[in-house]
């Protein structure tokens, strides 16, 4: 009975911690604030002060929007061994394995599970996630603007 209550308390604790796990989301435009969307839902009105709750699942799709137009996005793919942050328009990928926000979730869950499951289960329940994500929203610096009013050369 005590063991059951202990597991229950740990699960409740981990659920509470899960609610607290956040990712700080910023944009590379220091002058203006952008609304931030996480997996299609608006989570912040202004990117200058934005902490997004960690979404469940293997992917978190973050978008920065200003005046109804999306100017940039970053996708966080997470797995057992680390995480990968991918930006779409600027085509960059950053990889990392910093156990930060979700470590707090993973450990109690892992411990709780460890009472019932073999030890290796603890490591697989520990997830990785970045604490900060920068969404690029500025136009590319290099080169001239694309001549949109000219015919498509690839045609």
């Amino acid at each position: 009975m005590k063991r059951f209550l202990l597991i229950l308390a740990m699960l409740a604790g981990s659920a509470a911690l899960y609610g607290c796990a956040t990712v700080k989301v910023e944009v590379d435009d220091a002058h203006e604030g952008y609304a931030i969307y996480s997996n299609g839902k608006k989570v912040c009105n202004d990117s200058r002060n934005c902490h997004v709750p960690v979404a469940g699942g293997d992917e978190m799709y973050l978008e920065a929007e200003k005046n109804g137009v999306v100017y940039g996005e970053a996708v966080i793919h997470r797995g057992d061994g680390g995480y990968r942050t991918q930006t779409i328009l600027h085509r960059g990928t950053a990889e990392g394995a910093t156990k930060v926000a979700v470590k707090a979730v993973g450990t109690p869950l892992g411990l709780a599970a460890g009472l019932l499951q073999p030890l290796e289960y603890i490591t697989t329940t520990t997830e990785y996630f970045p604490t900060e994500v920068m969404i690029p929203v500025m136009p590319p610096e290099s080169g001239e603007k694309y001549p949109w009013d000219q015919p498509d050369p690839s045609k």
Partner: protein
Amino acid sequence: MLKNALKPHYNSIFMHMNSLVRCGFMAILLCSAMLCGCAKVYMPPVQVEGVHPDYGERLRVLTKQYVVIDDHVTLVDDVQQSDRTLQLQLLRDTAGVVVVFEMRESKDGSLIWAYRHIAYDPNDFIPIVSRVSKEKIR
């Protein structure tokens, strides 16, 4: 004698079974269409503003390809046959071009959803269209 007498009876059973099978098949088709719920979508030519029409055509072709791959809706060539209309626009902006997707009810033109994304060069169309086709076009 008895065999001959039963023949018309068997024939009528077979005929009934045949019509039952036909009806069943039609019902299955109807149910699967209802369960699928695939909307028939019409895509008019892309509206462009400050952008060469070539890029409108490029966006339209690309969107059609992705919509067919993702298979959430059925594209139709006539607005009369459609449930929804997906209007694409390319609007020149200071930084690049705003790619606009607007899904409307074909009946009354009411807006279902809209999505606007900046593109700095035509290569940006692919990730934008891929995302919209996968997540939005229903």
